């Protein structure tokens, strides 16, 4: 599934620009502990998290995560979005919980 298709299908809110709308998402990881994500997430994953601190951008950059999805409509600090724009990391938001959005996207992104 491409990033732009993900945004449309699950009505995700765009917090940053969508940097690579045509990029194919391959697999995903749900997690809020950065050491866990840095150890286990893979390139081109969707990363589902409730973590909004700006360090998520460094983690996503290092792991070449395709897109970050923030759950439960959590507020994302402006410095995180600024950093994401510098590194061209797409951040999206949903009102769903990690469990719900992981379950919904799982069959199509796995």
């Amino acid at each position, binding site marked *: 599934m491409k990033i732009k298709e993900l945004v449309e299908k699950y009505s995700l809110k765009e917090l940053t620009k969508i940097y690579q709308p045509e990029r194919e998402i391959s697999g995903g990881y749900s997690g*809020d*502990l*950065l*050491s*866990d994500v*840095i*150890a286990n997430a893979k*390139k081109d994953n969707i990363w589902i998290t409730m*973590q909004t*601190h*700006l*360090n*998520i*951008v*460094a*983690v996503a*950059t*290092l*792991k070449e995560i395709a897109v970050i999805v923030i759950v439960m409509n959590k507020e994302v600090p402006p*410095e995180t979005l600024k950093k994401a724009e510098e*590194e061209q990391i797409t951040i999206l938001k949903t009102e769903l919980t990690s469990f719900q959005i992981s379950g919904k996207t799982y069959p199509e992104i796995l």
Partner: protein
Amino acid sequence: MNNEQSLIYNQLFEIKGGNFIDAGSASVNVKKTLKLIGIPSEIIYRVSICCYEAEMNIIMYAYRATLDFSITPDKIVLKFNDEGPGIKDIELAMKEGYSTATSEMREMGFGAGMGLPNIKMNSDEFYIESEENKGTNLFIGIFIDRKTDNHDKSEEIA
């Protein structure tokens, strides 16, 4: 250790403790350099994990540190030397799940107690020495021709 002649690349970074704004930037720079040089992605993957975990340990606990990043034909070396509180019990710090992180750090997603174990798991050479109230030195070596095998690692506790 490799002599200076065999160095392909060397860069020194300064990392400031408590600077969460730039946290991870040294690791991102290291990764970008490795990509530019054309190091295989599975090696970059492991270097990134090691570098990020070590950098975040400094941001969280130390006052200041240097990262000496070098590439030789055989391996990538990351040497972190910090001034800080040091690690009281290295053996305990190496245990998965053990952490001295504050609740604030945990709220930011740190303090899983996986930092040093992650570094050990993803490196080929790993040495740590620490002195309480003085600082910690970390040596991380990752061989370029090796892929994902993690055996034959050495650890020295000084």
